[in-house]
């Protein structure tokens, strides 16, 4: 692994952890009182990794941030949820990006929906119940909204990186 890749990966993991920690202070649950509703800003980092590094490296970063996140604040049940949601979202986003037919908005929206699906499935498996599926429609709706927000954040961040060294790492798909 090139040193620069290692440095960038470490930076992205740190950024993801900081974002998901910050996100805990946003009282989103007050607006939508459902378990598991969050902005998913850390997904922004996953998208950065996907676009600026590689699909493989992005996956490693995702695993690292899930594991470290659970060490710092999520706990073990949180790990199961964020891993299932995260991996499913990652697979969908990588595929959506590779297809070349979506912009960062579409990739983010599809990723959010996949994350919600993964979360609900993980919760169902943990509780040994299919009734967690009843959360799915509500989570999908909020996921649509947060997906657009995260997508806009990604577009904003990527635009800011234009003309920098990172820009050389593809802005087209």
């Amino acid at each position, binding site marked *: 692994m090139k040193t620069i890749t290692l440095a960038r990966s470490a930076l992205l993991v740190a950024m993801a952890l900081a974002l998901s920690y910050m996100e805990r202070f946003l009282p989103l649950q007050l607006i939508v009182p459902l378990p598991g509703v969050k902005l998913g800003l850390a997904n922004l980092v996953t998208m950065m990794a996907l676009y600026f590094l590689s699909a493989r490296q992005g996956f490693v970063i995702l695993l690292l941030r899930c594991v470290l996140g659970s060490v710092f604040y999520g706990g073990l049940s949180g790990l199961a949820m964020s891993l299932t949601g995260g991996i499913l979202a990652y697979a969908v986003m990588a595929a*959506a990006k590779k297809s070349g037919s979506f912009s960062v908005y579409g990739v983010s929206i599809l990723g959010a929906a996949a994350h919600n699906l993964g979360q609900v499935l993980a919760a169902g498996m943990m509780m040994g119940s299919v009734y967690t599926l009843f959360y799915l429609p509500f989570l*999908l709706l909020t996921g649509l909204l947060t*997906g657009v927000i995260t997508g806009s954040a990604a577009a904003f961040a*990527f635009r800011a990186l234009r003309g920098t060294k990172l820009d050389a790492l593809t802005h087209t798909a």
Partner: protein
Amino acid sequence: MKRDVLKFRKSDLLAAALVLLAALLTCALLPRLMQTGEFASVYQDGRLIRRVPLTVDQTFSVTGDYTNTVTVKDGKIAVTVSDCPTNDCVHQGWRSSGGAIICLPNRVEIRLPSDGTVDISVP
């Protein structure tokens, strides 16, 4: 063809519509696929012939020697029409839990979900 990945596209709207559709579909289909809550069990001649979710409003008939029309509404169940001689079943009215609605002439028993009290009746 290279296109700007930072610009919103029509296909993004399609993705959003897809998610919205999935949300609406799951919202509409899930309650039907997984009937939650309490069930009433309809027995005829001692055999379970139907499990009725009390959460879904519906009307159905149980036919034997006579015909009982059973209606579920607002979480309650009742025999609303019956051509049996005494109509005892209809007179038991709307019930939601505890015991059973019984139509003896038609040998129909609608067992209701437990209301939490101990059932001391002999089976």
